[in-house]
């Protein structure tokens, strides 16, 4: 057997490229964000240390607090709907009926197709004058006139959520489906021979056995949704009148749009704090679930 020491060195040598890469492209920028958030950096070459001024400004105006609250509401609805629709999809795709494989393949396009292209298609569907949703509503006489979904705050807010759900659902569905298939079959057979009906088995076996998968997926989905940029940017760019401006969009507008790097960085730091908090919850949940399995 080889010595542990040389094995460790060998492992580190193998890890070096990945480590250097991530340190340069993720860790260093993270540190840079924190540093920048205390400066008044902008397009100009030089900038000064301004202490907590950026943070005072973003929280002082009240505007940013609104953005935070909006982001959480947006994320909450998007994630909850994804979980419900994903569970619905997984149950349907799990049923042993002809066409099963084809149906599973057909759920994947929103996930694999370039996100932005799916979003362009939604852009057309939401078109007020001639888009499919407005058009069908009018044809069936459900509304009097055209509805420009992206032109009003309330409808734009929900429109971006629906599109976000659409993008996330394939992933959730396939993940739930895999979790569902790993539930031991004999549990169902035992319950069945005891006379338990289909719905009873779902409620008493499937749902409880799926809880770890649901927790994992909701947390992962929470982080992804919280960070969602493309959908809102392509559909509404945060408008109309900020109704779809989430924290990421706000940061992008400040930093890249207005070239206020310092102020943007302060926003990015606040986002990072939330993301780190979600991560800690996630890691803790995973550990708990693993311990639960071990018992």
């Amino acid at each position, binding site marked *: 057997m080889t010595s542990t020491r040389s094995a460790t060195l060998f492992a580190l040598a193998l890890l070096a490229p990945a480590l250097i890469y991530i340190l340069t492209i993720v860790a260093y920028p993270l540190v840079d964000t924190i540093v920048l958030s205390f400066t008044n950096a902008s397009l100009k070459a030089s900038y000064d240390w301004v202490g907590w001024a950026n943070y005072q400004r973003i929280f002082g105006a009240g505007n940013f607090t609104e953005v935070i609250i909006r982001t959480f509401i947006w994320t909450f609805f998007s994630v909850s709907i994804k979980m419900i629709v994903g569970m619905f999809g997984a149950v349907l795709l799990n049923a042993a009926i002809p066409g099963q494989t084809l149906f599973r393949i057909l759920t994947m396009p929103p996930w694999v197709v*370039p996100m*932005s292209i799916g979003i362009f*298609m939604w852009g*057309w569907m939401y078109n007020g004058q001639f888009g499919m949703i407005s058009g069908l509503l009018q044809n069936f006489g459900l509304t009097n006139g055209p509805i420009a979904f992206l032109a009003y705050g309330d409808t734009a807010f929900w429109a971006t959520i629906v599109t976000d759900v659409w993008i996330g659902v394939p992933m959730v569905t396939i993940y739930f489906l895999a979790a569902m298939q790993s539930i031991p079959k004999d549990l169902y057979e035992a319950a069945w021979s005891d006379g338990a009906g289909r719905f009873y088995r779902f409620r008493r076996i499937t749902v409880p056995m799926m809880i770890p998968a649901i927790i994992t997926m909701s947390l992962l989905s929470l982080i992804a949704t919280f960070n969602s940029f493309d959908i809102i940017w392509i559909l509404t760019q945060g408008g109309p009148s900020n109704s779809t401006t989430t924290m990421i969009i706000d940061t992008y507008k400040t930093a890249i749009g207005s070239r206020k790097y310092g102020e943007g960085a302060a926003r990015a730091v606040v986002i990072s704090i939330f993301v780190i908090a979600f991560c800690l919850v996630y890691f803790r949940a995973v550990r708990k679930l693993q311990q639960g399995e071990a018992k």
Partner: protein
Amino acid sequence: MIDRYKWYEIASLYAGIAVFLFFVLAPFIEGFLVSLKPLSQLFSTPYSFIPKNGSFDAYFTMWKSVPALGMHIFNSFFISTVVTIVVIAVVVPAAYAFARFPFTGSAMLLGAFLAVNMFSGAVLLIPLFRLMRGLGLLNTYWAMIVPGAAFLIPSSIWLLRTYMMRIPKELDEAAWVDGASRLYTLRRVILPLAMPGIVVVAIMTFIGAYAQQFIFALTFNSKTEFMPLPVGLFAFFGKQEVIWNELMAASFIGILPVMIVIVFLQRYLVAGLTAGAVKQ
């Protein structure tokens, strides 16, 4: 054998699947139908789902409206391919290290890689912009490739590590006993055995890279000649008067290759998707 479905259960299952798949596929169906409609029909009421006088004209005229379309598609492919090569080159040794040589702190390091996944490029955009500018990479392919690959590395390490852990350890040990060096063992014993796993990771990376080319390309590059498809079409999409049928036709041309990949490789995809649930 568990109870069979009754006829009404089967009927409601199919009805449910129809509703579910309609939600999933509606934008594609509508997008495809729009690409077939003449523009005049798009902008007339009442709305009709089915095209009248449908034709593939838009698929020919779009090349004139978006002169750089072919270039955008090429760029998307090129960027995704290089990202995949970079990711595989970095991830294979790292995954092997994590799978075979757990050292003090390796679990924590693995956790740290996982945490990287939780940060989106959007959060780190400002420093990345400064970094790309500092390195003189703005307005080059590298401004999209380098950060793009970074965010695909962690989940790939996890995925491949899981795969490599399934390869019996005795094989490495037998090679060492025979006097092979560790590096030789990795190259000649592990690499061939891990090939199917590497292929899955490569496919996942390619699709991920192709699908997510937006924010870096939008921010770090303003040159048409380097623009990938999503940003190229976004410029088209952002115009005052969008030629929708051509936009949809261009979108379909752009996603067709990926669609073909999915149909042939869906088995790998499902495996990768469930094992690599850390990515979304």
